[in-house]
């Protein structure tokens, strides 16, 4: 996290605690996009994400007085957001997700990769593919079950460190690493299949 972000957060936190005018508006300006998108990636539904965002802001405003400063302000806000969203999900029918096992690498008894391996790492360096790949990564991420999706979004999309993600979710660091690794393996396999199909067409 950049030093500037830190300074912004410190000043904002101070203003919020003092009840300074404009503090809430500033909080909203800095975090609305992040919170809404995080909520979207967990809830996958615009109106749910909107309501969740409202809840998150209300909670942050109400509880900022009790924020201990044990963790960074933004990770505290993320935690509130994740909890709010998961609480919402709990009341809902689970949406369709894919089984991650299907996408884990398979090895033969000799320890070799069982499926053919194409090296497409050079292909994706072409600029023309960039936008499309971004879209595909988003799409594939949405199909992940929430257990992996939340970890992946916080770490690889939001750029939180493993330690921060662990704090936000209340999980251990090894658990974060393992989920993150599996999510990345899944994504690699999905991209492989996608690029292979593209070539076959």
């Amino acid at each position, binding site marked *: 996290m950049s030093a500037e972000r830190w300074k912004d957060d410190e000043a904002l936190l101070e203003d919020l605690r003092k*009840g300074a005018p404009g503090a*809430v*508006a500033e909080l*909203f300006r800095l975090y*609305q*996009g*992040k919170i*809404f*998108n995080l909520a979207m990636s967990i809830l996958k539904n*615009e109106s749910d994400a*909107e309501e969740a*965002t*409202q809840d998150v*802001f*209300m909670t942050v*405003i*109400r509880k900022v*007085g*009790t924020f*201990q400063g044990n963790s960074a302000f933004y990770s505290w806000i993320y935690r509130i957001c994740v909890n709010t969203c998961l609480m919402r999900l709990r009341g809902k029918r689970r949406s369709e997700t894919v089984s991650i096992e299907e996408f884990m*690498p398979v090895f033969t008894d000799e320890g*070799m*990769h069982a499926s*053919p*391996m*194409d*090296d*497409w*790492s050079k292909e*994706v360096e072409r600029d023309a593919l*960039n936008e499309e*790949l*971004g879209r595909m*990564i*988003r799409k594939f991420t949405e199909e992940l079950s929430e257990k992996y999706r939340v970890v992946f979004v916080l770490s*690889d*999309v*939001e*750029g939180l460190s493993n330690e921060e993600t662990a704090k936000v979710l209340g999980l251990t660091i090894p658990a974060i*690493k393992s989920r*993150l*690794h599996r999510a*990345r*393996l899944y*994504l*690699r396999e999905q*991209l*492989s299949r996608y690029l292979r199909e593209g070539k076959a067409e």
Partner: protein
Amino acid sequence: MLADYCNGSMDPRLREELDEHLSRCEPCMAFTKTFRATCEETRKLREAIEYAIPDEVRKRLDLFVRSAALKYPEKVKEYRDQVERDRREKVTDLVGAAAAGQLSSAAALLMESHCAACPECSGYIDAFRNTGTPRGGDPPAGIRSHLIALMQALPPGEEFFLA
């Protein structure tokens, strides 16, 4: 392990061994390269992300937050008063339980080690224990803040008094 390899934090000896294997094993090399490319594509996505919110949603959220902001100062005051009252009550209960020897084992341990280092708190609690009444009403602010910190150090879900 792959993550360590890709971000360069792998033990150099292990790395050498892995490099040696990769140079001889085409499928593994392809796997590693594509794995790394996947991580890099995600990183690019992260840099390009602009946190777009649909305009309609932004307007509604803005309105909502504005109205929340208007009520904010009184809400904050109300809430802080409540928290302060709760804390005072809790500290009074804690001191009472300590004086009566009714602390849970975890809290007693914390209290003991704190009092050993803090004459202020140990003096206050000893006086309470000997006279049966708190000296000068509620504990002064200094002692209160020590004891609040002490309660917060308790493991979550652990009560400070004996059931």
